[in-house]
């Protein structure tokens, strides 16, 4: 096996994901076969190959300085609408279970 049950649980923990017993078992088996498939990449020689993060680099191919803009303040007036989307809000705050103990 490429991935153990403990690893699935550890990763679920990192991702803040509650999984049932049967999900853990199913994912372990399915991820194992996917990782098995992905292992075919080991056959590719990638020495001296740069990793690629963006398909078309900002600033390239006519995207003149595309990533940069002037740092100016623009008004945003949708604060109330944003709070209305929240499951539990009391303007101007989102409410969550207490995280600080006194």
């Amino acid at each position, binding site marked *: 096996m490429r*991935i153990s049950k403990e*690893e*699935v649980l*550890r*990763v*679920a923990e*990192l*991702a*803040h*994901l*509650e*999984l*049932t017993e049967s*999900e853990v078992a199913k*994912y372990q088996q*399915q*991820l194992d*076969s*996917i990782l098995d*498939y*992905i292992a*075919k*990449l*080991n056959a*590719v020689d*990638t020495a001296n*190959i*740069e*990793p*690629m*993060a*963006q*398909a*078309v680099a*900002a600033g390239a*191919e*006519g*995207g*003149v300085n*595309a*990533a940069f*803009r002037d740092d100016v303040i623009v008004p945003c007036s*949708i604060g109330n*609408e*944003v709070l*209305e*989307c*929240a*499951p*539990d809000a009391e303007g101007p705050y*989102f409410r*969550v*279970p207490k*995280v600080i103990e006194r």
Partner: protein
Amino acid sequence: MTTRDANSSAGERWSISSIRQALTAKKISARELAKEHFGRIERDNPRLNAFLTLSPDRANAQADRIDGMIARRETLPLLAGVPMAIKDVISTRGIRTTCGSRILENYVPPYDATAVERLESAGAVVLGKTNCDEFAMGSSNENSAYGPVRNPVAPDRVPGGSSGGSAAAVAAGLAVAALGTDTGGSIRQPGALCGIPAMMPTYGRVSRYGLIALASSLDRIGPFTTNVRDAATLMGILAGRDANDSTSAGAPVADYVSGLGAPVKGLRLGIPREYFGPGMSPAVRQKVEAGIATLEKLGCKLVELSMPHTEYAIAVYYIILTAEASSNLARYDGVRYGLRVPGATLMEMYRQTRGRGFGAEVKRRIVLGTYVLSAGYYDAYYLKGQKVRTLVTKDFRDAFEKVEAIVTPTSPVPAFKLGERTEDPLSMYLADIYTVTGSLSGVPGISVPCGLTPEGLPVGLQIFGPHFGEERVLQIAYAFEQASNKN
């Protein structure tokens, strides 16, 4: 005005240009057009499940605005009165946007995506939001929390995915055009399976602002239409720099429509042998080879190519995609929007909310993405994937030194039966084998219909161009469509 086809249950097939003529000649009003399409949706959507949410108020207000312009004899914008559908991963102010997920079941965005804003500024009438695989993760539309979409051509089969609702809506005549999103094939593959043109622009060509992210280095917005000219019209409206998307490109936008008639004689088309391997169904192969022969008859020169890293693309894709998706989906925490499942502690609330709010495929990909990014595996998987992505992209760059465009099948198989692939995620992933390469490399691609299998299922021909080569891609697609219509 085009003739009404009394025998067709779908009713009249409108196009952007036939709508313009009919409106200008006052044969129909924008309001009547909207009503006609809502009527079709009411009739056919219970069967197809293509739409999740309708927006009649917004559609009617826009239609009335267009009718007012007609009454005042004002110049009409390019999409005046065109009834359109929007995939439910694209934000629409005041219209529920679910991403096909329970976790956003009641989410109503406070702003519009740039693409939607551009369409409406050009006069389009937004009918509603279309069904899709949850967070655009899937190739069959069976991963929607709101039930699968059925293929209008064959109701026991999938429409493809993830933009299955948009493809089905346009193919069934419920909308004249639709927006989809493509991350690994999610526009092109459902376009192929439903038998309509479907375009993925160059990465950065269309603003992603307001597109709820799946994988930020791959996601693109593009159109579904019933003909290539409409695709060119829509691309001209959607393309261009947007200050709200720092990855949107400033490259000049060509006049895609006026480029359509140019002869394709003498163009060199690459036929990469890796796209014609054993995984392809014989019926698809036969149609695609016939399609390529049509292009040759138009005077294109066929150049056999090798793109040697093609076979690694699916593996690379499922590393990059799941890594980016697991990061993007971290935002669904039950705090700012969407579902909240209460918990005694903040952590408990996060875990329960995400555990219950996300469906099986989303959780599977979050687990895989978190795994490939985690300490000890990052180099072996994520970094390795990024390096092979460079090689997949180099295959395209090398090819475009020899040819103007690359022609391949869109999907190795026609529409498959509902439920046929749901138990084995890997077999579903392999449905994207010919589309993910273009996704990883950022090039534009279109799928155009190239006939039916003996069972009557549509087959798609895929045309790739170099970065920002939309004009060329559309020109070839149009020439192919015109030649196919003659046959």
